[in-house]
C-alpha cells in the first residue's frame, strides 16, 4: 500500500537529547495503536539545522514544520495529520510566540539564505538506510569514478572545482590528491579527520549523523584517485551516535558490494576502518592524528615531509576533513564548473557553520562563500537574544579571533577572515553580546589551550601557561599596564615558534580582543572594573533601597543565601558571603539590584 504521509523526526544529537528518540518511538506506537501504520512512514533523519527550535518533526508531502515537539504530541500528530489530514496548528513554526500566522518552510528566514551541498541529505533521508542515500543519487559519483573517469581525470575535476580544505587551513584538495597520487608506493592511505574539537562546533558530527554514506563514498573516490585501498575515519569517542551510524553505513555498503573487494565488479577494492580518538584537541592536527592512529601518543611532528608524501606508517596519506569529503560526490556528479560557480573568486562552494552563543536561532547552517557575517547573524540567526547589543563574533574557536561590528559586512572567505585577524577554522561561530567580557572570553580560550597543549614544544607549553596567568591576573584586578605588552610579546613568539597550529593560533583570541577592546582591558587594570559583570573578583552586587519594594524574589533565588530583609522593606546583600552568581540581578523586576 502506498504511504500517504511521511514523518521525518530529527535524529541529530541535539534533538535526541531533547527526547527526539522518544517522539520517534511514540509516533510508531501511536500509528500502530490508531491502526494507520501502513499509511505513514516514520523516519528518523539527520539534523535539520534549526536546533534552536528542536526537537523538529517534519511531515511530508504537506511540508508541515513542527517545532519544539514533545513526546506526548505524537498522539495528536497521528490522529490529526495521518487520519484526518489536518495540520496540528499549535505545533507549526511561528515567527514569534504572539504571532498567529504559521510560516511556511520556504518562508522561514532561517532557511532562506542557506544553500545546502554538504547538508543536502541531512533532514531528508534516514541515515541508517543505504537505500534512501542511493535514491538521492548516492554512489553515483563512485560509479562515474570507477567506470568512466581515469584517476588523473578525477584529480583534474577536483582541481578545477577549487574545493579547499574545510578543516580550517583551506589547502586546495585537488593539489593534495595530486601530490599523493604522484608518489610511488605499494600502500597509500585515505584518512577522514572527524576529530572535531572546537568548543561550540558540531558541523562534522551532524554531517556524519545525517549522511554517513557521503563520507564513505568520498573516501573511496579519493582512494581511486590516488591509488589507495585503505581508509581510516578518525573520530572522537564522544560522538557515539555518529560512530554508530558510520558502523551501520559501512556494514550496509559492504553487504551491497559498494565497499570491499572488487567494488561493483570493478578492479577497485577499498576498505574503511573506524579509529576512535580520546578527545584530545591536538589530535585534530593532522600529524598528531596520524600518530594517534598508529597507536602512539598524539603529538605533532614537524612538516615537511607532508603526510601526502610521508604520512601514516611512513606511507603517502591523504587527510581530508568530514565537510571537505561531503562535498566531493556532488562535485563529481554535477561537475567542477557547477561547483566553481558558487562562492567567491578564491573560496568556492559553501561553508557549514555551527551558530551558537547569544543568538536567537542557534543551529547548523550552510551558506555560499561570500555571504556576509551580518546576513548570517542577523538574517539567518535572527539577531541577538533579548534585544541586547552585538559585541563580536568568534570564528574558528580557540584558534580564531573576534570579529566586531564594523567588519560584519565582509563577505566570508578564507582570505577575508584571515585579514580580519581571525580564520575560517572548522566553522564554529560563537556570538557575543554586551554581557560578555573580552578578558573573560580570552581567558576561557587560553585555559582551553593550556589544557589541550600536548607539551612537546616550549613556545606552546610555556606560552599558553604564561598568557593564561596574565589574563587571570587582569581578570582579578591585579594586572598592570605593562601586562598588555607582555601578552602581545608572548603571543607573537608563540605564533611564530610553535610546532603546530594549536600553539600557532592559540594567541589569536587574546590578540584580537586586545586589538579591538584594549579600553576594556585597561578598565580592568586601572579602574578594577568589568563592565559586563563577568569577572567575579571585580563585581560587587548591591541593592538600591530606593528602588527595592521588598518583594523577596531575589532572596528566594539566592543560592547562598545571603540576601536578607523584611517583607515590603528594602533588602540587603551580604557582600562578604555573596558568590556573585548574578541570579538576583536577573530575578529583580524593578532594576533594584546594582552591579558595579
Amino acid at each position, binding site marked *: *500500500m*502506498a*504511504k*500517504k*504521509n*511521511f514523518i521525518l523526526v530529527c535524529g541529530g544529537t541535539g534533538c535526541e537529547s531533547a527526547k527526539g528518540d522518544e517522539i520517534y518511538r511514540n509516533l510508531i506506537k501511536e500509528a500502530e495503536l490508531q491502526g494507520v501504520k501502513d*499509511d505513514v512512514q516514520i523516519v528518523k533523519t539527520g539534523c535539520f539545522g534549526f536546533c534552536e527550535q528542536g526537537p523538529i518533526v517534519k511531515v*511530508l*508531502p*504537506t*511540508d508541515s514544520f513542527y517545532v519544539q515537539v514533545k513526546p506526548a504530541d505524537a498522539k495528536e500528530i497521528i490522529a490529526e495529520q495521518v487520519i*484526518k*489530514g*489536518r495540520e496540528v496548528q499549535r505545533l507549526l513554526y511561528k515567527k514569534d510566540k504572539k504571532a498567529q500566522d504559521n510560516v511556511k518552510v520556504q518562508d522561514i528566514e532561517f532557511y532562506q539564505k542557506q544553500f545546502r551541498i554538504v547538508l543536502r541529505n541531512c533532514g*531528508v*533521508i534516514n541515515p541508517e538506510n543505504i*537505500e*534512501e542515500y*542511493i*535514491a*538521492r*543519487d*548516492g*554512489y*553515483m559519483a563512485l*560509479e562515474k569514478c*570507477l*567506470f568512466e573517469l581515469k584517476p588523473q581525470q578525477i584529480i583534474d575535476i577536483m582541481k578545477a572545482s577549487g574545493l579547499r580544505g574545510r578543516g580550517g587551513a583551506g589547502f586546495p584538495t585537488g593539489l593534495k590528491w595530486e601530490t599523493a597520487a604522484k608518489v610511488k608506493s605499494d600502500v597509500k592511505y585515505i584518512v577522514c579527520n572527524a576529530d572535531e574539537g572546537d568548543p561550540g562546533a558540531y558541523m562534522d558530527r551532524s554531517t556524519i549523523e545525517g549522511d554517513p554514506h557521503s563520507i564513505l563514498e568520498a573516501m573511496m573516490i579519493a582512494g581511486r584517485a590516488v591509488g589507495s585501498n585503505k581508509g581510516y575515519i578518525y573520530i572522537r569517542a564522544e560522538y557515539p551516535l555518529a560512530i554508530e551510524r558510520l558502523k551501520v553505513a559501512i556494514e550496509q555498503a559492504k*553487504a*551491497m*558490494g*559498494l565497499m*570491499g573487494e572488487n567494488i*561493483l*565488479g*570493478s578492479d577497485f577494492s577499498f576498505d574503511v576502518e573506524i579509529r576512535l580518538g580520546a578527545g584530545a584537541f591536538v589530535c585534530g592536527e593532522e600529524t598528531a592524528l596520524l600518530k594517534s592512529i598508529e597507536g602512539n601518543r598524539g603529538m605533532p611532528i614537524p612538516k615537511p615531509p607532508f603526510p601526502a608524501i610521508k604520512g601514516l606508517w611512513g606511507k603517502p596519506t591523504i587527510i581530508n576533513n568530514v565537510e571537505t569529503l561531503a562535498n566531493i560526490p556532488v562535485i563529481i556528479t554535477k561537475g567542477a564548473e557547477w561547483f566553481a560557480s558558487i562562492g567567491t573568486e578564491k573560496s568556492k562552494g559553501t561553508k557549514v557553520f555551527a551558530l551558537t552563543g547569544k543568538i536567537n536561532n542557534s543551529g547548523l547552517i550552510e551558506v555560499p562563500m561570500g555571504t556576509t557575517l551580518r546576513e548570517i547573524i542577523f538574517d539567518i540567526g535572527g539577531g541577538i537574544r533579548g534585544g541586547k547589543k552585538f559585541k563580536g563574533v568568534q570564528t574558528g574557536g580557540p584558534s580564531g579571533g573576534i570579529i566586531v561590528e564594523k567588519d560584519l559586512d565582509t563577505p566570508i572567505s578564507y582570505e577575508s577572515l584571515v585579514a580580519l585577524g581571525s580564520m575560517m577554522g572548522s566553522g564554529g561561530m560563537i556570538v557575543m553580546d554586551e554581557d560578555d567580557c573580552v578578558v573573560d572570553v580570552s581567558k576561557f580560550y587560553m585555559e582551553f589551550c593550556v589544557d589541550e597543549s600536548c607539551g612537546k614544544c616550549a613556545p606552546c607549553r610555556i606560552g599558553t601557561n604564561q598568557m593564561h596567568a596574565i589574563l587571570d591576573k587582569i581578570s582579578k584586578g591585579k594586572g598592570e599596564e605593562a601586562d598588555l605588552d607582555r601578552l602581545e610579546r608572548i603571543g607573537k613568539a608563540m605564533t611564530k615558534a610553535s610546532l603546530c597550529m594549536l600553539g600557532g593560533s592559540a594567541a589569536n583570541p587574546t590578540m584580537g580582543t586586545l586589538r579591538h577592546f584594549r579600553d576594556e582591558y585597561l578598565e580592568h587594570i586601572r579602574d578594577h572594573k568589568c563592565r559586563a559583570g563577568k569577572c567575579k573578583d571585580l563585581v560587587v552586587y548591591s541593592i538600591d533601597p530606593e528602588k527595592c519594594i521588598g518583594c523577596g524574589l531575589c532572596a528566594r533565588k539566592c543560592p547562598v543565601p545571603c540576601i536578607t530583609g523584611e517583607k515590603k522593606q528594602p533588602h540587603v546583600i551580604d557582600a562578604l558571603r555573596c558568590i556573585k552568581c548574578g541570579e538576583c540581578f536577573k530575578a529583580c523586576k524593578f532594576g533594584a539590584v546594582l552591579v558595579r
Partner: protein
Amino acid sequence: MARMTLDELRAFRDAKRQDLARRDVEGKDIQIVVGMGTCGIAAGAKLTFDALVESIQKRGLENKVLVRQTGCMGLCYVEPTVEVIAPGMPTVIYGKMTKDAADELVQKHLVEGKLLDNHIFDRPAADIVKK
C-alpha cells in the same frame, strides 16, 4: 542484500528514486488531493490513493505531481472525492473516484489536459463563500 553489479545498482537506484520522490515537495506544481474523511475511506479512498500513486509512477510523473490526503471535502454523497490542482487547468473536484477511475484521471487530466466529464462535481461552497 547481495553484492551488486553496476547495472543492478543503477536499476535499484531508479526504483528507489520513485519512492523517495514522493516525499519531495519542491518543483511539484500539480497537486492531487484525496479526500480521506471517514466517508471517503469507507467508499474506498485508500484504494484510490494507491491506484493514483501507481498510475503516476507508471507514467514517470512522480517528480511533477504531489499526491496528498485531506479531510472530508463535504461532498459525502459522491465519495471518494479527489481534487486536482494543475497549472493551465481549472481546479476541479472529481467525485465517485473509485480505484478504477484513477488511471483514467491521470491519463486524461494530467497527460491529455482534458477533464473527465462524468466525474466533475465542481468546487465546494467554501471556495465561493471566501470570495
